[in-house]
């Protein structure tokens, strides 16, 4: 955990710092966009805390981003219209929205309630800049709740040369893979965003030698003994130890090549 970020996993905090320092410059605007917790994801999370809680502390990194000299904003995406929580909390949310960031509400977002959400936002050179037009949006995507992607107006949120960084992961249910990549890229591709990079974020140490095939004993976790009878094998997938998240970077295609001076020539890799 990073200091002062109790809910923010260490790997996510380091990823946000790397994203901000690699793809933005001081003075740029960064939005930490928390995805809505869907009832389906919460139900699934009863047996797998990874899905619902891994990205819960995304907005906690606002202080970290602010300390890097970027304008930091936080928001949550609007829940689905048929979400009961939307109706019960609509009045309170609307009040909070109008008090702090009305422009985000117009974009289909809700500000994250916090003790001093605006104090983390450094002053812009030209005063309080317009809402939207972020240079970098960092969000997360639960593989079981991807509907909000299509409801968000990414065109209004992103600056013309802005980047969207989506942290996500694959999951399996009933032996079937739930891979959000195709949905993510197809949905945002219809809004003119293309995949610029796919980076694997390691959340646990990887053994140095390929001979170290992990077993239940070495991991200290309980893994059911697989039954290799044909019928049983049909219904089960091999036990999978997930030790990474996927970071997908999207942006609009540049019409012309940019000068190399805009880049800091920092070398990165897709792991």
């Amino acid at each position, binding site marked *: 955990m990073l200091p002062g970020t109790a809910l923010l996993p260490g790997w996510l905090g380091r990823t946000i710092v790397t994203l901000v320092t690699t793809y933005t410059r001081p003075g740029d605007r960064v939005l930490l966009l928390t995805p809505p917790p869907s009832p389906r994801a919460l139900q699934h999370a009863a047996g797998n805390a990874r899905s619902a809680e891994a990205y819960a502390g995304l907005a906690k990194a606002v202080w970290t981003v602010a300390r890097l000299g970027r304008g930091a904003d936080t928001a949550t995406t609007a829940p689905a219209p048929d979400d009961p929580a939307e109706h019960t909390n609509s009045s309170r949310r609307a009040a909070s929205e109008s008090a702090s960031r009305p422009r985000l509400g117009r974009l289909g977002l809700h500000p994250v309630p916090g003790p001093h959400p605006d104090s983390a936002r450094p002053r812009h050179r030209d005063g309080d800049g317009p809402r939207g037009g972020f240079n970098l949006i960092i969000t997360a995507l639960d593989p079981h709740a991807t509907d909000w992607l299509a409801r968000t107006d990414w065109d209004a949120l992103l600056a013309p040369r802005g980047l969207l960084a989506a942290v996500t992961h694959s999951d*399996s249910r009933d032996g079937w*893979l739930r891979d959000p*990549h*195709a949905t993510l890229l197809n949905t945002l591709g219809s809004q003119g965003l293309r995949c610029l990079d796919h980076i694997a974020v390691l959340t646990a140490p*990887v053994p140095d030698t390929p001979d170290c*095939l992990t077993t239940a004993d070495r991991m200290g976790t309980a893994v059911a003994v697989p039954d290799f*009878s044909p019928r049983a094998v049909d219904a089960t*997938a091999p036990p999978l130890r997930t030790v990474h998240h996927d970071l997908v970077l999207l942006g609009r295609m540049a019409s012309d090549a940019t000068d190399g001076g805009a880049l800091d020539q920092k070398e990165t890799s897709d792991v």
Partner: protein
Amino acid sequence: MSKRTGTQVPRPAGERSEGPVVSSVWPTGTDSLTAQLNEGGYHDATGADPALMAPAIAHYAIAALTRPGDVVLDPDCGAGTTIVEALRAGRHAIGLTGQRRWWRLARANVTATKARGVFVDGMVLILDRRPGTAVAAATAGLTGRIDLLLTTLRPGPAGDLDGALERLHGLLAQYRPLLRPGGHVVITSAPQRHPVRHDLLDVPSRIAAVATAAGLAPVARCVALTATVRRGRTYTRASLAQRRAATRAERALGHPVALPAHHTALVLRADPDAADTALNQPLPAVPAPPRPPRPGRGTRPDLAAA
């Protein structure tokens, strides 16, 4: 080729009692590809295969998803690293390739491996991928006997992605009935960028769609490292060509572009719902080679119709 039968398989002596646990990140980048080929005793020309599956990646997939005595099939084996690694791990292996150049090289690699004392009870076939090869394999008793189909996405005839996927779909549809119920398929792919726009293509998702259409169910999307990760730092082994491509993409996109450090390994299994359908389908007829007409005789109408 000996093969286990029955529903409950006795666990070989020395095998893990818990069964393998597949990690979502495969630590397969400890050594460079050149070092892997040298250490594995591969033929010097093996590195010329442009779509070569790194021996470490093949080894990890085989060790994680099969057991000694199982059968591994690569329907597009190229220079044969998948076949050699299967043999070295004590698995039976069948490799197919449609190009005589790779056929010779794979044979040479397999022969060299066996000459170094690899004892595998069974036969190793490098078949020319003619139209009747799948039918011949099915009639030879391999239907439902393959434990792991391990291959990589190779460029299509014109070097384009669509052609490569179409070719892969043909291979999977052809050899899917050979996979035993519950058997696994691993398809690896290197990151690819659009040649003009330089954006990253979502090749794994398209592979998953192609495999699903062929009656396979994706179960995991893993990262096969081609770089070393030590103390939280990644040391890439990007070639000069890859670095130049990244630089071009950076100029075109206007943003930093990451150097390639992993391949994607898509793990699939035989879809139980599609398995019965595939196995119950009648085998297509073996195309008979055309016979030259005998001199001095006309073609009979009934033979011409057949």
